[in-house]
């Protein structure tokens, strides 16, 4: 038990520290790398909570795909991050004040928090026994049956996102060289190759 607590505080501390570094490091590439570190520690926390599927998904999807994409964007686009960061000190007091208010409010709310006995009994019921099924199996059991509706709407939302990305960014430029399979197949050797007699010592005028 103490080992679990030890790892919890280790992961949590590294996560908070790297999250701070994400917004404070000067180099945007470092920011993205720190974000990866934060996600990896988040995955560790999920693992401690017994949610191994979520932990691995976090690593595979966020670290493996999303953040690598981020890294590409940061490296390839010429965004002036120094200019974007200007004015931080100017806004810091206001931001800190709002953060403080939110913190106080949250403490007030959570201070009044008590678990009612009915909820405790309700909460236990729908969760399958972790010893009986693995995470993946438990998710798979409900995702395509009980939550098929939500799953399908998520599919539609992703379709809309894809249409949007294409509508807003795809441009048919005349300069782009596109492959025309028909033209490639129609092409005969006599169109492309010409046999010329080369006189010795004269070279060839193209």
């Amino acid at each position, binding site marked *: 038990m103490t080992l679990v607590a030890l790892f919890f505080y280790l992961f949590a501390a590294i996560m908070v520290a790297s999250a701070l570094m994400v917004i404070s490091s000067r180099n945007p590439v470092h920011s993205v790398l720190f974000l990866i570190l934060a996600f990896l520690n988040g995955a560790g926390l999920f693992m401690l909570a017994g949610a191994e599927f979520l932990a691995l998904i976090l690593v595979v999807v966020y670290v493996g795909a999303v953040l690598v994409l981020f890294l590409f964007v940061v490296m390839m686009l010429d965004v002036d991050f120094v200019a974007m960061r200007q004015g931080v000190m100017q806004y810091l007091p206001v931001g800190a004040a709002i953060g403080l208010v939110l913190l106080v409010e949250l403490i007030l709310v959570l201070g009044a928090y008590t678990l009612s006995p009915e909820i405790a009994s309700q909460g236990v019921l729908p969760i399958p026994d972790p010893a009986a099924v693995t995470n993946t199996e438990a998710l798979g059991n409900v995702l395509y049956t009980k939550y098929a509706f939500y799953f399908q*709407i998520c599919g*539609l939302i992703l379709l809309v996102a894809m249409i*949007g990305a294409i509508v807003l960014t795809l441009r048919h430029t005349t300069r782009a060289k596109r492959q025309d399979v028909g033209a490639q197949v129609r092409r005969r050797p006599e169109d492309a190759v010409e046999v010329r007699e080369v006189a010795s010592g004269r070279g060839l005028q193209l």
Partner: protein
Amino acid sequence: MSELHLFPNLVPVLPEIILAVVAIILLIAGAFTDEEAVPTLNLLAIFAMIGAIVAVCTLSGGSSTFDGAFQFDNFARYLKVLVLIGGAVSIMMSMSYARFQSFSRFEYPVLILLSTVGMMLMISASDMIAVYLGLELQSLAIYIVVSINRDSVRSTEAGLKYFVLGALSSGMLLYGISLIYGFTGGTNFYSIAETISVDGAGLGVIFGLVFILAGVAFKISAVPFHMWTPDVYEGAPSPVTAFLAAAPKVAAMALLVRVVMEAFQPALIEWQQIIIFLSVMSMILGAFAAIGQSNIKRLMAYSSIGHIGYALIGLAAGTEQGVIGVVIYMTVYLVTTLGVFACIIAMRRTDEGMVEDIADLAGLAKTNPWMAAAFTALLFSLAGIPPLVGFFGKFYVFLAAVEADLIPLAIIGVLSSAVGCFYYLRIIKVMVFDEPKDRLEPMAGELRLVLAVSGGFSVLFFLVWTPILSAATAAAQSLF
């Protein structure tokens, strides 16, 4: 539990399935055809909407499916018909717009269809997860159509603004939902209501409720969450603004009614004061901020903020009478708004292209008397002048407020609608009494049809009033 039993009942979702399938077919068809096919695709989308209206009308009410996440009752039926009319009419109006402006994108009808699916899911949602997903599907499609005119700086700016603020509101909504889940142990509306009625509305529930209401208030653009509205209305292409002003407002209002009436019914005292605040602020800001506007689309944005305030009066009453008022108000609002936007889309000159200033309407009564007459009827109706339909919309919500002992709210409503009359009458004054400017181009056929139906409804509404009233009553009864 047998496998057969696990398969959900898909009949109540039939209209949504029709629209989603047609949207995907149109998407594929659009990708393989060129620009000349776009009007055909638009027509097909309109037919799909009409098919969905038929399906919605014939389905039997009172059924719920997907473990209670989706509910099809009389309330859903009535509002889905409204939303589908809004969607179909805005596709129709975009067709005439596209003939003169560069707007022929086959993605437009597809996105409108998918957005309509999202709105219908919002109307039927009786689970917080379904609420969020429906809202997100609806909004995401709208963010895209707002900036579909991507070469115009104003259009892309409007899209970006709407996207950022919409994402913020989704975040607030999700935060509220997670708090509610944490404090009541459920996401289904009935289980939330049950827990609140047993345990009372604790601080955590109120906290979550406030965040959920703030998130939805963004979508209906109630003050103080209205900042995006004028800029987005002005920047978006006119047919998109027509869509944005009509259908999503109705859907978000329906969602709000269902959430507070079903999930938070036991916490009525708590949400009532929030709704009253939103209502009063929206009415006052809508009435006063519209006075200084010279762009007619910005003016309509403030006008819609004000109208949402009036509709919220009915909700604040929290009674069956109040819900009838909201439903009727949204019906009147939808039909009149579509008519007004038909006029706005018709504001086009041969040399200048689209014009959007109120001053451009000068002397319309002389140059195009029919359009001016219909426009005047619609504006009088929006202002709530008695013989027209807008008056009866306001009448029902004020009546509900008085019956629920919210007399100060009703008085503020009456006063601010008197202030609101000023800017509607100013447009009429410009049309009738000012010196005519150059003629506007004659209206396209589709726009004439929309304007005639809408203007006709605002004058001759008593011919269809009995069925509307009985349908609205049935809709409200299904929530109680």
